[in-house]
């Protein structure tokens, strides 16, 4: 079974993940306050694609409209949106991005509900469950985050939303192997087959979109 790491964010994280996974997607983080220079961005994406093959753009923004521009103008990348702002997440799902990473990030609630789950399932937008933020959290934050993640998993499971487990590593020390990411999934309530599918079946079908 082919194992896929959908989100690593640095050169050294990519190198290590390549040893443990069959496919690795390199993610470029994009914190946007306003419309980016599309030409420049396209150029950068082209470079990264040359270097790493499979590329994702992770948009971190408070402005929903920017997502549409990216969706329309930048091709051959997976488009991820970081969770946290519900308006942005809803818009991103409606626009049909490829994934929402961590709907609960930066929030005091799960940042996801049955309405969003139903919509995500319909639009084929995946939810990414990242390990990285857990590694950096205090005990209190970890317990809270795990609680929210388990809640989001229940919704994702119930409504059949595409999903993946990922390290979302910012550096090589945050990379974790497939079995370790599976253990996260199981801690959230997945059964082993679901955890495996979150590292293989669902990621592979997202990768199909890059062809």
């Amino acid at each position, binding site marked *: 079974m082919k194992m896929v790491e959908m989100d690593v964010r640095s050169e050294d994280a990519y190198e290590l993940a390549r040893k443990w996974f069959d496919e690795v997607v390199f993610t470029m983080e994009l914190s946007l306050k306003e419309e980016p220079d599309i030409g420049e961005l396209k150029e950068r994406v082209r470079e990264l694609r040359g270097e790493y093959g499979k590329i994702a753009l992770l948009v971190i923004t408070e402005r929903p409209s920017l997502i549409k521009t990216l969706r329309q103008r930048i091709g051959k990348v997976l488009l991820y949106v970081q969770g946290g702002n*519900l308006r942005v997440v809803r818009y991103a799902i409606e626009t049909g991005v490829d994934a929402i990473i961590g709907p609960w990030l930066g929030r005091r609630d799960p940042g996801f509900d*049955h309405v969003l789950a139903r919509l995500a399932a319909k639009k084929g937008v995946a939810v990414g469950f990242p390990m990285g933020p857990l590694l950096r959290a205090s005990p209190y934050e970890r*317990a809270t*985050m795990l*609680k929210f993640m388990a*809640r989001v998993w229940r*919704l994702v499971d119930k409504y059949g939303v595409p999903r993946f487990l990922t390290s979302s590593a910012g550096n090589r020390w945050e990379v974790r192997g497939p079995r370790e990411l599976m253990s996260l999934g199981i801690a959230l309530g997945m059964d082993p087959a679901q955890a495996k599918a979150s590292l293989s079946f669902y990621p592979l079908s997202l990768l199909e979109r890059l062809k």
Partner: protein
Amino acid sequence: MREKPKTLPPTLRDKHRYIAFQIIGERPLKRNDVKRLIWEASLRVLGELGTAEAKPWFIDFDEESQTGIVRCDRNHVERIRFALALITEFNGTRLIVRTLGVSGTIRRLKRKFLSEFGWR
């Protein structure tokens, strides 16, 4: 503030229980102390993952009567009770946390176990 997620339909909601408790201490505790006390006890005894599963949530504490309410997941009442039972002190103040009763709603909990302490 920002938007919040919608309230889930009943079948998808977490099933909770409410626990009434009393603190018997050398000195009275403040509301915020009790909040921390519960979290620390849960993190120590149940760990980060066990706490995520048991979902303890501080609801209220009456400093006068030293009684309060904590919520948790329906299936983890005994684990939370055990975590509370193992508490021995807070900031050097010796104390006992005694649970008074458990109920599925705050209203019934107050009526059955807290009315004698002046709750309404």
